[in-house]
């Protein structure tokens, strides 16, 4: 860097002063804890009392821990279904909501409503909806002559139930797709129509490529969010039946606050970080050739 003038240096110092809350916050609540987690993971660390250094024992235990692998598998299966299904449903809904018809503003608002509801109320609502005897879902299925499904009480049905539940909130992602759809220049569609492109080929050759940065954004955030699933499993099934809905973060929570093993829980959180990082890198690698940034920028989207 070339020598700065007095005024420039003054501006630089002022700039650093303005961003200093983030610098301190980053050190205290992101970087510091990440490093500290690495240290904790090398110890046997009860919540109260003194830690004992155990080296890589927690990581060795983790690799031979059935529940670690099981929770990783459950979370991965859930992600593999809920994220793509949510994206397809969200995009389809966005395209419907992008039509020019009367009352569209009201439709858009109402479809967004489920996404506003989160946390415990959401989990309790669906816990009751999936109730085998009295739940609304089995009640509706009964109208079609389908026998009551034990959604949350059998190992086979619990993940499908949670995946169905996640689809209820696709309206949240729709606003982002809508903005993306509206950013596609209409000339592209006009030109394609003149060339005789049908609706389907226009969808594949214009809509999808033009939306690819938005799709990538929703994919990455969807995967990260899906790996953080916790509240629903804790409240609706508490990881059951027979640990069939033991999501990864729920296992971290149990290790730390039920089994009092902070060291092991810290090792698990590092594993969570590593898994998510690897998945995000893989997603970027696989899609980099296919994501199209209008205007030739390679740094769009994010």
């Amino acid at each position, binding site marked *: 860097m070339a020598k700065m003038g007095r005024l420039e240096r003054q501006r630089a110092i002022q700039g650093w002063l303005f*961003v200093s809350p983030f610098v301190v916050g980053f050190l205290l609540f992101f970087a510091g804890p990440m490093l500290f987690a690495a240290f904790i993971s090398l110890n046997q660390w009860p919540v109260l009392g003194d830690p004992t250094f155990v080296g890589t024992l927690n990581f060795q235990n983790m690799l031979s821990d059935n529940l670690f692998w099981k929770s990783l598998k459950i979370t991965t299966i859930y992600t593999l279904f809920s994220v793509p299904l949510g994206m397809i449903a969200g995009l389809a809904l966005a395209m419907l909501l992008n039509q020019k018809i009367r009352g569209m503003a009201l439709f858009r608002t109402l479809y967004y409503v489920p996404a506003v509801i989160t946390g415990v109320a959401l989990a309790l*609502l669906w816990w*009751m909806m999936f109730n085998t005897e009295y739940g609304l879902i089995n*009640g509706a299925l009964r109208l079609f002559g389908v026998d009551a499904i034990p959604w949350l009480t059998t190992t086979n049905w619990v993940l499908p139930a949670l995946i169905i539940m996640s689809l209820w909130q696709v309206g949240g992602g729709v606003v982002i797709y809508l903005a993306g*759809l509206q950013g596609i220049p209409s000339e592209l569609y006009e030109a394609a129509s003149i060339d005789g492109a049908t609706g389907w080929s226009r969808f594949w050759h214009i809509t999808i490529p033009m939306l690819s940065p938005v799709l990538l954004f929703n994919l990455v955030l969807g995967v990260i969010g899906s790996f953080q699933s916790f509240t629903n499993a804790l409240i609706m099934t508490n990881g059951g039946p027979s640990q069939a809905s033991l999501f990864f973060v729920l296992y971290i929570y149990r290790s*730390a606050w039920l089994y009092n093993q902070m060291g092991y829980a810290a090792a698990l959180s590092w594993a969570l970080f590593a898994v998510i990082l690897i998945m995000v890198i893989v997603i970027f690698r696989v899609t980099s050739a296919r994501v199209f940034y209008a205007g030739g920028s390679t740094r769009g989207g994010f």
Partner: protein
Amino acid sequence: MASSEVQKQVGDAPLPGNGMTNASPATRTAAFFSDTRVLGILQKIAVYIILIGGLAVVLFPLAWMLSASIKPKSEIFSYPMTWIPSTPLFSNYPKGLAVMQFGRALTNTLLIAIPSVLGQAVSCALVGYGLARFRFPGRDALFILVLATMMLPSQVTLIPTYVIFSRLGLVDTFWPFWLPAWLATSGFNIFLFRQFFMTISPELEDAARIDGAGVFDIFWRIFLPLSKPVIATVVLFSFVFYWNDFFGPLIYLPSTQNKTLQLMLMNFQQFYTTDWGPMMAAMVVIIIPPLLIFFFAQRLFIQGVVFTGVKE
């Protein structure tokens, strides 16, 4: 906006209607005109049917909850179900609120939310301003760090942060919420402020500087008054976040006297499972504030979501 053309991609209309294909000869347009119009109307009807049908499915659970919140136990479980109970049981509401110890839980929730929302707004506005309006070595790297924190799952730092607060004796206090809030720990909020401040013309700033205004004056008197929509967005989003927050209170607030609404709602399920009516009533009450915020500030809300998703 491209919507009039975009709409065609879902339908199977072979050519765009409304004669918008300027290049096609007038005769061809005329020949297709009646066909595309019929198709257009059919398509619109189909869209309405799908949208209304889908909406029924989407809103059904909420209608069910609202209806059950004024039903006696026997009627919630009756089949076939009724939408409006024969005798509405509004006493489910006071009952549900009492089980939640509503007054204290609400006070705790607000004691966490209000100072934290304020802290997020102030600290993130300062950082966003610094990133947007100053040039200094390391700025771009810092901005990438801000984006990286948005991607980092909070659970990754949860264990060490808890251990630190625990050793400081701050578990079962509200400090674990207040402290990070005042240190600009929301990448999302910083991003919103930064993007907005970037759009403000530098001439305003230059004029004020020539008049001898200090940097903080410029930030406070010129930039903040202009950024009311962003401030509102940040405040609303943060408030809804703290209102719905569950994991934080779950681990940091073990004693009943400090519990928030979300935690008290969870207790319902454990101790009160036999009677759904009061529980549904409590759920309705907890859902209402975020819903009201969404309905009344919809534009801000959706702009906020879209802004982070598409911009930059």
